[in-house]
């Protein structure tokens, strides 16, 4: 249960928000001009990186605004939040893994939670 800094309300508990998937996927302005494949890419295909991910959140039980968050999916660390339409801010000074040290791919359940 992490905290999400709503750009309009400030930090609030995750339970006040609902998730909206990957950010910065603009709806094509001329859908009819697209091939089936290009349209399907827009409708169905999303990236799922381990690391920094720009995603949408909706402050459902708050101001009702949609906005974007940069979250490190490996650690659940929320690195930044910004309003819809703004470019993602540059973030630095975070680790791509928790100190418990997962491997680059996978859950890390079998990895080292211990300093070797």
């Amino acid at each position, binding site marked *: *249960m992490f905290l999400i800094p709503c750009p309009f309300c400030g930090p609030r508990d995750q339970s006040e928000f609902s998730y909206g998937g990957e950010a910065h996927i603009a709806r094509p302005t001329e859908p009819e001009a697209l091939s089936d494949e290009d349209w*399907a890419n827009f409708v169905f295909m999303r990236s799922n990186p381990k690391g920094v991910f720009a995603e949408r959140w*909706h402050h459902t039980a708050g101001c009702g605004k949609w906005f974007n968050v940069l979250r490190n999916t490996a650690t659940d660390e929320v690195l930044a939040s910004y309003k*819809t339409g703004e470019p993602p801010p540059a973030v630095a000074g975070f680790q791509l893994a928790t*100190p*418990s040290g997962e491997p680059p791919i996978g859950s890390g359940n079998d990895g080292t939670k211990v300093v070797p």
Partner: protein
Amino acid sequence: MSMQTFRRKYPTGVNGASPVTFRFNGRQYGGFAGDTLASALLANGVHMIARSFKYHRPRGILGSGSDDPAALVQVGADPARTVPNARATELEIYDGLEAFSQNCWPSLAIDVGSVNDAFGRFLPAGFYYKTFMGPPGNWMMFEGLIRRAAGLGKSPTAPDPDHYEHVNRHCDVLVIGAGPAGLTAARIAAASGARVILAEETPELGGRLLSIEPSSRTMDGQSIAEWLQDTEADLTRSPEITVLKRTCAFGYYGENWVALVESLQDHVPEHARRADLPRHRVWRVRTAQVVLATGAIERPLVFHGNDRPGIMLAGAVRTYLHRYGVLAGRTAVVFTNNDEAWTTAFDLHAAGAEVAAIVDTRDEPGPNVTAKAKSLGIEAFTSATIVETKGRRRLSHMSVMSLDENKQLTGGPRWLYADLLAVSGGWSPNVALFSQSRGRLQFDDTLQAFRPERSWQAERSAGAADGVFDFAACFASGLQAGAEAAQAAGFATDTPQAPACSVDPIDGESGIEPAWDLPSAKPPARTRAFVDLQNDVTSKDLQLAVREGYVSVEHAKRYTTLGMGTDQGKTSSLNGFGVLAGALGKPIADVGVTTFRPPFKPVPFGAVAGQHVGDHFHPRRTTPMHTWHEDQGATFEVVGDWLRARAYPRAGESFEDAVQRECIAARTQTAALDASTLGKIDIRGRDARTFLNRVYTNAWMKLAPGRCRYGLMLNEDGMVFDDGVTACISDDHFHLTTTTGGAAGVLSWMEDYLQTEWPDLDVFMTSVTEQWAVASICGPESWRVVGALLDDIDPNPDAFPFMSHRTGHIAGVPVRVFRISFTGELSYEINVPARYGLWLWQQIMDKGEPHGITPYGTEGMHLLRAETGFIIVGQDTDGTVTPYDLGMDWIVKSSADFIGRRSLTRSDTSRADRRHFVGVLTDDPAIVIAEGSQVIATAEEQDPRTPMIGHITSSYFSPTFERSIALGLIDAGRNRVGERVYIAQRDGEPIPARVTQPNFMQHFGRAT
């Protein structure tokens, strides 16, 4: 009543002035206020508490707190309040407490299940896996036997009469554990003005200070008891501190969100429990900083016969002696691999017990302890191990053998007679919460245990939890952690001043040498060296797991069930890792640890549920007319969060008959439905019309004020996701309705497009679902009722055309009336401000009475709309259905883009053989098909199986056509109209039926 013959004196924790009587296994015993069940039973000389999970071996008291693995009891016999698997070492006694041994039948002493012990070699590691994976039938054969034989306590069988609560709390510094480090941390943090919560698992502050000889130390010139009293008084004086006793931090989640469970009543005699207090309270704490002062957990040693009652942890023996004034035995042996445990021998000696010997696996124990043992005349065996223990339900004697330089047995055995064996394999910092917070551990050779290495969250460990055992260093560590935490939370602290603590030369000495799996004098087949006393996992089981290929600790744990009991391996995990490391020939650090997960200890289900039970489990929304429906004896159904009247059966009338009667009234006279639950969204702004044109599949640019239109919404994938009627109030103002269950989702979805895709549009949306109460009046006579109601609207269908709306008044109350219909019958939907809803409903019933008005519920509404072939989104559609599949081509505009439009021409969505929405009529008009039934093309069974060509989505007995009707989705169904299909039955012959178009009014020539 038996005498407390092992009670020595009444120190701080136990109040000798307040005697308590309780019953264990039906027998009455005496103890004192402050005793746990374990300390009181030990005072009465009772060591055997339970039988083990798998082998039903006698189990005694090993520890003195939440770490104890196997001294589990059932509390009380009341079917509603009985508590299974209570730890005797934590359970506080009170007058009238009744506790029972678990997992034994017919009694603790004579237990039939203990034959499992004799057949132990047939229950090896991975027994469950092997029977599951073995020849078919093995599991079936063993299951009943295993379920009866294995297990712990019995869960309550009656509803829980107690109440529980959850509370949320924010603070600056949360200190977990009130031992020497936690107390000093909390004190300095509280003095800084920070909001502090101090959570202590036991009923007393003091931690390890309560487990040492009370006169052995002074702090700032005070005795331990005085210092603790002053510290507690000091803490309670701080305005910003909350001190929680009997409160266990059981889960450490993201961003310093920590869950605590407080026990408020379980220690109070039943007659004195307060109805105004919850039984347990869960504190959901979000804190800026955490200090983990969770102490350390002592490990037993792994040797043959190490599980007999009377074999206890050395530290626990000291706790029982000093905190509870109980001697755990008359004659003791101490068996260890470190110096610290020797103090148990010295303290027992000082308390008047006989110490038969100290057995140490090391060549050279520390000079301080060896000198003191010598001065007290206590015999010490070095380079030695215990190889066997005897005694049926309680330890009576044991044999000792020497170890050579390779730690193998040498020489002959020597027998020692003692009723108490205090064991210690060293102390492990309690890193469970630290590890839950995702900090990294490090194996510390000087401790032979894991300790915190690097934090991930805003947290720091202090005292024994950080591997600091010397008392003076513990105080300093707590002060530093408390000061740093307060400063990190933005508060200035005083200069840390640790209490001046008198020194004992043995303090902090350990000199521990690893001794994970001690050699046995028995052949391997007959050796029983237990690692996990609750789940009966032996070192042999772990070695077998390694031989069978389970080299990862996570796999070996699950294969052998090591540490998987209610104690979560508090005393056993590290010993298990040590045994595995030995079998794998690797250092423990390379073997690693299994994942620490919440909860740290069992949390009662009642506490987890909190106040969210019964009526509070889920919010229920009711309409303004709800009381009227209740008074009429309506049956209700839950739709979304709403309670809706489903039908109004009269006295002696069945639900089905009521629905038929209500529908006949709607078709022949007039009937009224409470439609207040419909989702309603008020849409305003210059671009409202443009917006609607993009979210609905049909055209909205020309809808005139005063008119209504039905619309479908699709997702971008082209699938129908909601529908409803929207009215144009004025060019920049619309009243949009959604399905009852879809209201919140539709608003959120429209906000998404408005805010993120089309922020240039000038549109504002407000949910007005609860602002309007709605009554739908339908039937050929309905216009007469509406006419009688309304002051200023001519309801005549010619003057008030279909799909239009009017604003008017009923007795001066402003209303909006919509001429729309979901039943195919003449209908009027009257919207009033919600507070007039019940009044409106009563007006309708009064004015409608001469016209035979009948209230009808949602089941009747479903039936009536099915007769006209209207869809219900979510019943006839399931997220895979396009408007074309529904045969609703007329609602798809070609003039402009809308959400989901492009998907309608994708190769898959434009297939000709997609499933179509059609009507289905059984040959036998009396048969009503079960909804969800599968439709097949032939009655004959096919090989390999009969293909399913569709399914039934709605099915009713229609009073209008006096026969059954059904709607469904069938492959290329529109091309099959008139064709024969069959409805598959689980038991019985397929039902023959024919495909029709979905509008039965038209099909049967009743179209209006």
